[in-house]
Protein backbone atom coordinates (compact mmCIF):
# COMPACT_ATOMS: atom_id res chain seq x y z
CA UNK A 1 0.00 0.00 0.00
CA UNK A 2 1.21 3.40 -1.01
CA UNK A 3 0.61 6.72 0.77
CA UNK A 4 -1.38 9.20 -1.32
CA UNK A 5 -3.20 12.49 -0.69
CA UNK A 6 -6.92 12.92 -1.10
CA UNK A 7 -7.96 16.27 -2.54
CA UNK A 8 -11.64 17.13 -2.10
CA UNK A 9 -13.03 20.15 -3.89
CA UNK A 10 -16.60 21.40 -3.66
CA UNK A 11 -17.48 24.08 -6.17
CA UNK A 12 -20.21 25.32 -8.37
CA UNK A 13 -21.05 23.35 -11.48
CA UNK A 14 -19.97 26.19 -13.77
CA UNK A 15 -16.39 25.91 -12.51
CA UNK A 16 -16.03 22.17 -13.07
CA UNK A 17 -14.28 22.54 -16.42
CA UNK A 18 -11.73 24.96 -15.09
CA UNK A 19 -10.93 22.82 -12.06
CA UNK A 20 -10.49 19.67 -14.13
CA UNK A 21 -8.13 21.55 -16.42
CA UNK A 22 -6.24 22.86 -13.42
CA UNK A 23 -5.83 19.36 -12.01
CA UNK A 24 -4.67 17.99 -15.33
CA UNK A 25 -2.14 20.78 -15.70
CA UNK A 26 -0.51 19.75 -12.43
CA UNK A 27 -0.33 16.15 -13.58
CA UNK A 28 -3.27 14.82 -11.57
CA UNK A 29 -5.04 12.71 -14.11
CA UNK A 30 -7.38 10.54 -12.05
CA UNK A 31 -10.39 12.05 -10.41
CA UNK A 32 -14.01 11.36 -9.65
CA UNK A 33 -16.86 13.85 -9.94
CA UNK A 34 -20.13 13.64 -8.04
CA UNK A 35 -22.75 15.90 -9.54
CA UNK A 36 -25.80 17.61 -8.11
CA UNK A 37 -24.63 17.87 -4.54
CA UNK A 38 -26.38 20.48 -2.46
CA UNK A 39 -24.71 22.57 0.14
CA UNK A 40 -24.66 25.40 2.57
CA UNK A 41 -21.61 27.47 3.28
CA UNK A 42 -20.45 30.20 5.58
CA UNK A 43 -20.21 32.61 2.72
CA UNK A 44 -23.09 35.06 2.62
CA UNK A 45 -24.75 33.73 -0.44
CA UNK A 46 -24.46 30.05 0.15
CA UNK A 47 -26.76 29.88 3.14
CA UNK A 48 -29.72 28.74 1.11
CA UNK A 49 -27.96 27.01 -1.70
CA UNK A 50 -30.12 23.94 -1.15
CA UNK A 51 -32.75 25.98 -2.93
CA UNK A 52 -30.87 26.41 -6.17
CA UNK A 53 -31.43 23.16 -7.97
CA UNK A 54 -30.37 24.75 -11.22
CA UNK A 55 -26.91 25.78 -10.15
CA UNK A 56 -25.93 22.80 -8.07
CA UNK A 57 -22.49 22.10 -6.80
CA UNK A 58 -20.11 19.37 -7.81
CA UNK A 59 -17.89 17.38 -5.50
CA UNK A 60 -14.53 16.44 -6.95
CA UNK A 61 -12.27 13.83 -5.37
CA UNK A 62 -8.77 13.22 -6.62
CA UNK A 63 -6.16 10.96 -5.09
CA UNK A 64 -2.62 11.89 -6.00
CA UNK A 65 1.00 11.40 -5.04
CA UNK A 66 1.99 13.50 -2.01
CA UNK A 67 4.68 15.33 -4.02
CA UNK A 68 2.07 16.87 -6.26
CA UNK A 69 0.18 18.57 -3.44
CA UNK A 70 2.32 21.70 -3.31
CA UNK A 71 1.82 22.68 -6.91
CA UNK A 72 -1.78 21.45 -7.00
CA UNK A 73 -2.71 23.62 -4.00
CA UNK A 74 -1.35 26.63 -5.79
CA UNK A 75 -3.41 26.02 -8.91
CA UNK A 76 -6.60 25.16 -7.04
CA UNK A 77 -6.26 28.11 -4.68
CA UNK A 78 -6.07 30.46 -7.65
CA UNK A 79 -9.23 29.06 -9.18
CA UNK A 80 -11.21 28.96 -5.93
CA UNK A 81 -10.09 32.42 -4.83
CA UNK A 82 -11.58 33.74 -8.01
CA UNK A 83 -14.79 31.74 -8.34
CA UNK A 84 -15.50 30.43 -4.84
CA UNK A 85 -15.57 26.86 -3.59
CA UNK A 86 -13.77 24.89 -0.91
CA UNK A 87 -10.86 22.47 -0.94
CA UNK A 88 -9.72 20.00 1.70
CA UNK A 89 -6.72 17.69 1.72
CA UNK A 90 -6.18 14.53 3.74
CA UNK A 91 -4.16 11.34 3.88
CA UNK A 92 -5.00 7.93 2.50
CA UNK A 93 -3.34 4.75 1.30
CA UNK A 94 -3.78 3.37 -2.17
CA UNK A 95 -4.42 -0.31 -2.62
CA UNK A 96 -2.07 -1.26 -5.43
CA UNK A 97 -3.87 -2.80 -8.34
CA UNK A 98 -2.64 -3.26 -11.89
CA UNK A 99 -2.93 0.48 -12.38
CA UNK A 100 -2.08 3.04 -9.70
CA UNK A 101 -1.90 6.80 -9.25
CA UNK A 102 1.89 6.73 -9.32
Amino acid at each position, binding site marked *: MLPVKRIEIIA*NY*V*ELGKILQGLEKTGIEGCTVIR*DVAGTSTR*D*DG*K*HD*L*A*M*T*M*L*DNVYIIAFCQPEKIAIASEVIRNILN*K*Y*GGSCFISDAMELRTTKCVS
Partner: protein
Amino acid sequence: MDVSLILSNILNPPVLAFFLGMLAVFLKSDLEIPPPLPKLFSLYLLFAIGFKGGVELVKSGVSQDVVLTLLAAVFMSIIVPIYSFFILRVKLDAYNAAAIASTYGSISAVTFITAGSFLTQLGISFDGFMVAALALMESPAIIIGLILVNLFAVKQEKSEFVWKEVLHEATLNSSVYLLVGSLVMGLLTGESGWEKLKPFTQDMFYGVLTFFLLDMGLVAAKRIKDLQKTGLFLISFAILIPIVNAVIGLSIAKFIGLQRGDTLLFSVLCASASYIAVPAAMRITVPEANPSLYVSTALAVTFPFNIIIGIPLYFYVINLFWV
Protein backbone atom coordinates in the same frame (compact mmCIF):
# COMPACT_ATOMS: atom_id res chain seq x y z
CA MET B 1 -57.84 47.34 -13.29
CA ASP B 2 -59.85 44.40 -14.46
CA VAL B 3 -59.84 41.78 -11.70
CA SER B 4 -61.05 39.08 -14.08
CA LEU B 5 -57.76 39.30 -15.98
CA ILE B 6 -55.75 38.58 -12.84
CA LEU B 7 -58.12 35.76 -11.97
CA SER B 8 -58.00 34.19 -15.40
CA ASN B 9 -54.22 34.31 -15.08
CA ILE B 10 -54.16 32.82 -11.60
CA LEU B 11 -56.79 30.12 -12.17
CA ASN B 12 -54.45 28.46 -14.57
CA PRO B 13 -52.81 25.15 -13.68
CA PRO B 14 -49.22 26.38 -14.13
CA VAL B 15 -49.70 29.49 -12.00
CA LEU B 16 -51.61 27.53 -9.37
CA ALA B 17 -48.75 25.02 -9.33
CA PHE B 18 -46.38 27.90 -8.63
CA PHE B 19 -48.48 28.84 -5.59
CA LEU B 20 -48.62 25.19 -4.53
CA GLY B 21 -44.83 25.06 -4.61
CA MET B 22 -44.43 28.23 -2.56
CA LEU B 23 -47.00 27.07 -0.04
CA ALA B 24 -45.15 23.76 0.38
CA VAL B 25 -42.09 25.65 1.56
CA PHE B 26 -44.04 27.90 3.92
CA LEU B 27 -45.81 24.87 5.46
CA LYS B 28 -42.52 22.97 5.58
CA SER B 29 -43.88 20.08 3.53
CA ASP B 30 -41.11 17.86 2.17
CA LEU B 31 -42.42 18.09 -1.40
CA GLU B 32 -39.61 18.35 -3.92
CA ILE B 33 -38.98 17.77 -7.60
CA PRO B 34 -35.73 15.83 -7.30
CA PRO B 35 -32.79 16.96 -9.44
CA PRO B 36 -32.04 16.64 -12.30
CA LEU B 37 -35.71 16.66 -13.32
CA PRO B 38 -36.12 20.45 -13.26
CA LYS B 39 -33.20 20.59 -15.68
CA LEU B 40 -35.00 18.15 -17.98
CA PHE B 41 -38.18 20.22 -17.85
CA SER B 42 -36.30 23.39 -18.68
CA LEU B 43 -34.49 21.69 -21.59
CA TYR B 44 -37.84 20.43 -22.82
CA LEU B 45 -39.54 23.83 -22.59
CA LEU B 46 -36.70 25.60 -24.37
CA PHE B 47 -36.66 22.98 -27.08
CA ALA B 48 -40.42 23.08 -27.52
CA ILE B 49 -40.72 26.85 -27.89
CA GLY B 50 -37.59 27.06 -30.04
CA PHE B 51 -38.83 24.38 -32.38
CA LYS B 52 -42.32 25.82 -32.62
CA GLY B 53 -40.88 29.29 -33.23
CA GLY B 54 -38.74 27.96 -36.07
CA VAL B 55 -41.65 26.16 -37.71
CA GLU B 56 -43.81 29.28 -37.55
CA LEU B 57 -41.02 31.50 -38.80
CA VAL B 58 -40.69 29.34 -41.91
CA LYS B 59 -44.42 29.76 -42.52
CA SER B 60 -44.52 33.52 -41.99
CA GLY B 61 -41.19 34.35 -43.58
CA VAL B 62 -38.95 37.24 -42.58
CA SER B 63 -41.08 40.37 -42.86
CA GLN B 64 -40.25 43.93 -41.85
CA ASP B 65 -42.01 43.27 -38.53
CA VAL B 66 -39.49 40.55 -37.75
CA VAL B 67 -36.49 42.74 -38.43
CA LEU B 68 -37.86 45.65 -36.43
CA THR B 69 -38.77 43.43 -33.49
CA LEU B 70 -35.33 41.88 -33.37
CA LEU B 71 -33.69 45.28 -33.52
CA ALA B 72 -35.94 46.51 -30.74
CA ALA B 73 -35.07 43.42 -28.70
CA VAL B 74 -31.36 44.04 -28.93
CA PHE B 75 -31.88 47.73 -28.24
CA MET B 76 -33.82 47.02 -25.03
CA SER B 77 -31.34 44.48 -23.74
CA ILE B 78 -28.56 47.04 -24.17
CA ILE B 79 -30.37 50.03 -22.77
CA VAL B 80 -32.06 48.38 -19.77
CA PRO B 81 -28.85 47.36 -17.96
CA ILE B 82 -27.37 50.79 -18.54
CA TYR B 83 -30.10 52.82 -16.91
CA SER B 84 -30.61 50.14 -14.26
CA PHE B 85 -26.95 50.43 -13.37
CA PHE B 86 -27.20 54.12 -12.64
CA ILE B 87 -30.35 53.70 -10.60
CA LEU B 88 -28.70 50.95 -8.57
CA ARG B 89 -25.50 52.93 -8.01
CA VAL B 90 -27.54 55.24 -5.73
CA LYS B 91 -27.29 52.60 -3.01
CA LEU B 92 -24.93 49.86 -4.20
CA ASP B 93 -21.28 49.55 -5.16
CA ALA B 94 -20.31 49.19 -8.81
CA TYR B 95 -19.86 45.41 -8.68
CA ASN B 96 -23.29 44.63 -7.32
CA ALA B 97 -24.95 47.33 -9.40
CA ALA B 98 -23.45 45.90 -12.60
CA ALA B 99 -24.44 42.34 -11.74
CA ILE B 100 -28.04 43.26 -10.91
CA ALA B 101 -28.29 45.51 -13.96
CA SER B 102 -27.23 42.63 -16.21
CA THR B 103 -29.77 40.36 -14.56
CA TYR B 104 -32.60 42.73 -15.42
CA GLY B 105 -31.34 43.43 -18.91
CA SER B 106 -31.54 39.76 -19.75
CA ILE B 107 -34.73 37.71 -19.78
CA SER B 108 -36.49 34.79 -18.11
CA ALA B 109 -37.68 32.20 -20.62
CA VAL B 110 -40.21 30.75 -18.18
CA THR B 111 -41.87 34.12 -17.70
CA PHE B 112 -42.11 34.39 -21.48
CA ILE B 113 -43.61 30.91 -21.72
CA THR B 114 -46.13 31.63 -18.99
CA ALA B 115 -47.17 34.78 -20.82
CA GLY B 116 -47.58 32.69 -23.96
CA SER B 117 -49.88 30.26 -22.15
CA PHE B 118 -51.82 33.25 -20.76
CA LEU B 119 -52.40 34.45 -24.32
CA THR B 120 -53.37 30.98 -25.53
CA GLN B 121 -55.95 30.82 -22.76
CA LEU B 122 -57.45 34.11 -23.90
CA GLY B 123 -57.36 32.92 -27.52
CA ILE B 124 -54.97 35.65 -28.64
CA SER B 125 -52.34 34.72 -31.21
CA PHE B 126 -48.68 35.66 -31.29
CA ASP B 127 -45.87 35.16 -33.78
CA GLY B 128 -43.07 32.62 -34.03
CA PHE B 129 -40.41 35.27 -34.40
CA MET B 130 -40.93 36.34 -30.79
CA VAL B 131 -38.88 33.27 -29.87
CA ALA B 132 -36.03 34.68 -31.91
CA ALA B 133 -36.35 37.90 -29.92
CA LEU B 134 -36.21 35.84 -26.74
CA ALA B 135 -33.00 34.14 -27.88
CA LEU B 136 -31.45 37.47 -28.90
CA MET B 137 -32.19 39.14 -25.57
CA GLU B 138 -30.40 36.66 -23.34
CA SER B 139 -26.82 37.59 -24.07
CA PRO B 140 -26.27 41.33 -24.74
CA ALA B 141 -26.93 42.29 -21.13
CA ILE B 142 -24.11 40.02 -19.98
CA ILE B 143 -21.68 41.84 -22.23
CA ILE B 144 -22.99 45.24 -21.12
CA GLY B 145 -22.47 44.10 -17.52
CA LEU B 146 -18.85 43.30 -18.27
CA ILE B 147 -18.35 46.68 -19.93
CA LEU B 148 -19.92 48.47 -16.95
CA VAL B 149 -17.59 46.69 -14.55
CA ASN B 150 -14.58 47.58 -16.65
CA LEU B 151 -15.60 51.21 -16.89
CA PHE B 152 -16.78 51.89 -13.37
CA ALA B 153 -15.07 49.44 -11.03
CA VAL B 154 -11.41 49.11 -10.15
CA LYS B 155 -10.33 45.70 -11.36
CA GLN B 156 -6.75 44.52 -10.87
CA GLU B 157 -6.88 41.50 -13.13
CA LYS B 158 -6.12 41.38 -16.82
CA SER B 159 -9.52 41.45 -18.42
CA GLU B 160 -8.64 39.95 -21.80
CA PHE B 161 -8.97 36.42 -20.50
CA VAL B 162 -12.28 37.29 -18.85
CA TRP B 163 -13.59 38.82 -22.06
CA LYS B 164 -13.10 35.64 -24.01
CA GLU B 165 -14.64 33.53 -21.33
CA VAL B 166 -17.63 35.80 -20.79
CA LEU B 167 -18.33 36.07 -24.51
CA HIS B 168 -18.27 32.30 -24.74
CA GLU B 169 -20.58 31.96 -21.75
CA ALA B 170 -22.91 34.64 -23.07
CA THR B 171 -23.38 33.16 -26.51
CA LEU B 172 -22.97 29.43 -25.98
CA ASN B 173 -24.52 28.73 -22.59
CA SER B 174 -26.84 25.79 -22.82
CA SER B 175 -30.11 27.72 -22.83
CA VAL B 176 -29.18 30.10 -25.66
CA TYR B 177 -27.60 27.23 -27.57
CA LEU B 178 -30.61 24.94 -27.26
CA LEU B 179 -33.06 27.73 -28.07
CA VAL B 180 -31.21 28.76 -31.21
CA GLY B 181 -30.50 25.15 -32.15
CA SER B 182 -34.13 24.08 -31.91
CA LEU B 183 -35.22 27.21 -33.77
CA VAL B 184 -32.94 26.21 -36.62
CA MET B 185 -34.27 22.64 -36.43
CA GLY B 186 -37.76 24.06 -36.77
CA LEU B 187 -36.69 26.18 -39.74
CA LEU B 188 -35.11 23.19 -41.48
CA THR B 189 -37.80 20.59 -40.91
CA GLY B 190 -40.82 22.89 -41.12
CA GLU B 191 -44.32 21.48 -41.25
CA SER B 192 -43.26 17.84 -41.75
CA GLY B 193 -41.07 17.76 -38.65
CA TRP B 194 -43.76 19.59 -36.72
CA GLU B 195 -46.35 16.92 -37.48
CA LYS B 196 -44.16 14.22 -35.99
CA LEU B 197 -42.99 16.11 -32.93
CA LYS B 198 -46.32 17.77 -32.16
CA PRO B 199 -47.61 15.17 -29.67
CA PHE B 200 -44.37 15.59 -27.75
CA THR B 201 -43.57 19.29 -28.00
CA GLN B 202 -47.10 20.67 -28.14
CA ASP B 203 -49.42 18.32 -26.26
CA MET B 204 -47.11 17.76 -23.29
CA PHE B 205 -46.14 21.41 -23.10
CA TYR B 206 -48.76 22.56 -20.66
CA GLY B 207 -48.21 19.67 -18.26
CA VAL B 208 -44.45 20.05 -18.19
CA LEU B 209 -44.85 23.78 -17.64
CA THR B 210 -47.10 23.00 -14.67
CA PHE B 211 -44.51 20.72 -13.10
CA PHE B 212 -41.73 23.15 -13.82
CA LEU B 213 -43.58 26.03 -12.19
CA LEU B 214 -44.27 23.78 -9.20
CA ASP B 215 -40.51 23.49 -8.83
CA MET B 216 -40.00 27.20 -9.45
CA GLY B 217 -42.45 27.89 -6.63
CA LEU B 218 -40.36 25.74 -4.29
CA VAL B 219 -37.15 27.43 -5.40
CA ALA B 220 -38.51 30.97 -5.23
CA ALA B 221 -40.01 30.47 -1.77
CA LYS B 222 -36.72 29.12 -0.40
CA ARG B 223 -35.03 32.26 -1.68
CA ILE B 224 -37.47 34.57 0.05
CA LYS B 225 -35.59 34.34 3.35
CA ASP B 226 -32.60 35.91 1.61
CA LEU B 227 -34.60 39.07 1.08
CA GLN B 228 -34.10 40.17 4.68
CA LYS B 229 -30.50 40.97 3.89
CA THR B 230 -31.46 42.52 0.58
CA GLY B 231 -33.07 45.64 1.98
CA LEU B 232 -36.09 47.64 0.96
CA PHE B 233 -34.31 49.52 -1.80
CA LEU B 234 -33.61 46.40 -3.81
CA ILE B 235 -37.06 44.91 -3.23
CA SER B 236 -38.73 48.08 -4.48
CA PHE B 237 -36.35 48.09 -7.44
CA ALA B 238 -37.29 44.48 -8.21
CA ILE B 239 -40.97 45.39 -8.42
CA LEU B 240 -40.78 48.83 -10.02
CA ILE B 241 -38.15 48.30 -12.69
CA PRO B 242 -40.11 45.50 -14.41
CA ILE B 243 -43.10 47.85 -14.67
CA VAL B 244 -40.91 50.61 -16.08
CA ASN B 245 -39.28 48.20 -18.54
CA ALA B 246 -42.63 46.78 -19.57
CA VAL B 247 -44.06 50.22 -20.26
CA ILE B 248 -41.04 51.22 -22.33
CA GLY B 249 -41.29 47.86 -24.07
CA LEU B 250 -44.93 48.27 -24.98
CA SER B 251 -44.40 51.80 -26.21
CA ILE B 252 -41.72 50.55 -28.56
CA ALA B 253 -43.95 47.66 -29.64
CA LYS B 254 -46.79 50.10 -30.34
CA PHE B 255 -44.36 52.30 -32.24
CA ILE B 256 -43.17 49.53 -34.56
CA GLY B 257 -46.74 48.32 -34.95
CA LEU B 258 -46.75 44.89 -33.35
CA GLN B 259 -50.04 43.08 -32.78
CA ARG B 260 -51.44 42.68 -29.26
CA GLY B 261 -50.05 39.22 -28.47
CA ASP B 262 -46.55 40.05 -29.62
CA THR B 263 -46.67 43.28 -27.66
CA LEU B 264 -47.40 41.44 -24.43
CA LEU B 265 -44.56 39.02 -25.06
CA PHE B 266 -42.18 41.86 -25.86
CA SER B 267 -43.15 43.73 -22.69
CA VAL B 268 -42.69 40.58 -20.65
CA LEU B 269 -39.25 40.05 -22.14
CA CYS B 270 -38.28 43.57 -21.14
CA ALA B 271 -39.82 43.18 -17.69
CA SER B 272 -38.34 39.81 -16.78
CA ALA B 273 -34.97 39.15 -15.22
CA SER B 274 -32.62 36.20 -15.68
CA TYR B 275 -31.96 33.85 -12.76
CA ILE B 276 -29.97 31.15 -14.51
CA ALA B 277 -27.85 32.27 -17.45
CA VAL B 278 -26.83 35.66 -16.07
CA PRO B 279 -26.05 34.49 -12.52
CA ALA B 280 -23.80 31.79 -13.99
CA ALA B 281 -22.04 34.39 -16.11
CA MET B 282 -21.81 36.92 -13.27
CA ARG B 283 -19.89 34.48 -11.10
CA ILE B 284 -17.19 34.76 -13.76
CA THR B 285 -17.59 38.43 -14.69
CA VAL B 286 -17.86 39.94 -11.22
CA PRO B 287 -16.97 37.42 -8.52
CA GLU B 288 -16.91 40.43 -6.19
CA ALA B 289 -20.69 40.80 -6.42
CA ASN B 290 -22.89 38.99 -3.93
CA PRO B 291 -24.97 36.33 -5.74
CA SER B 292 -27.67 36.37 -3.07
CA LEU B 293 -28.50 39.91 -4.18
CA TYR B 294 -28.89 39.29 -7.89
CA VAL B 295 -30.33 35.80 -7.67
CA SER B 296 -32.83 36.55 -4.90
CA THR B 297 -34.26 39.70 -6.37
CA ALA B 298 -34.75 38.11 -9.78
CA LEU B 299 -36.05 34.83 -8.46
CA ALA B 300 -37.97 35.64 -5.30
CA VAL B 301 -39.41 39.04 -6.21
CA THR B 302 -39.46 39.83 -9.92
CA PHE B 303 -40.27 36.33 -11.16
CA PRO B 304 -43.34 35.78 -8.91
CA PHE B 305 -44.41 39.38 -9.47
CA ASN B 306 -44.39 38.96 -13.23
CA ILE B 307 -46.02 35.53 -13.17
CA ILE B 308 -48.86 36.57 -10.88
CA ILE B 309 -49.50 40.27 -11.35
CA GLY B 310 -47.19 41.52 -14.06
CA ILE B 311 -48.52 39.56 -17.02
CA PRO B 312 -52.20 40.51 -16.57
CA LEU B 313 -51.21 44.05 -15.60
CA TYR B 314 -49.15 44.62 -18.72
CA PHE B 315 -51.91 43.10 -20.78
CA TYR B 316 -54.45 45.42 -19.19
CA VAL B 317 -52.32 48.41 -20.09
CA ILE B 318 -51.88 47.11 -23.64
CA ASN B 319 -55.63 46.82 -24.01
CA LEU B 320 -56.01 50.46 -22.93
CA PHE B 321 -53.53 51.52 -25.59
CA TRP B 322 -55.00 49.38 -28.30
CA VAL B 323 -58.57 50.59 -28.00
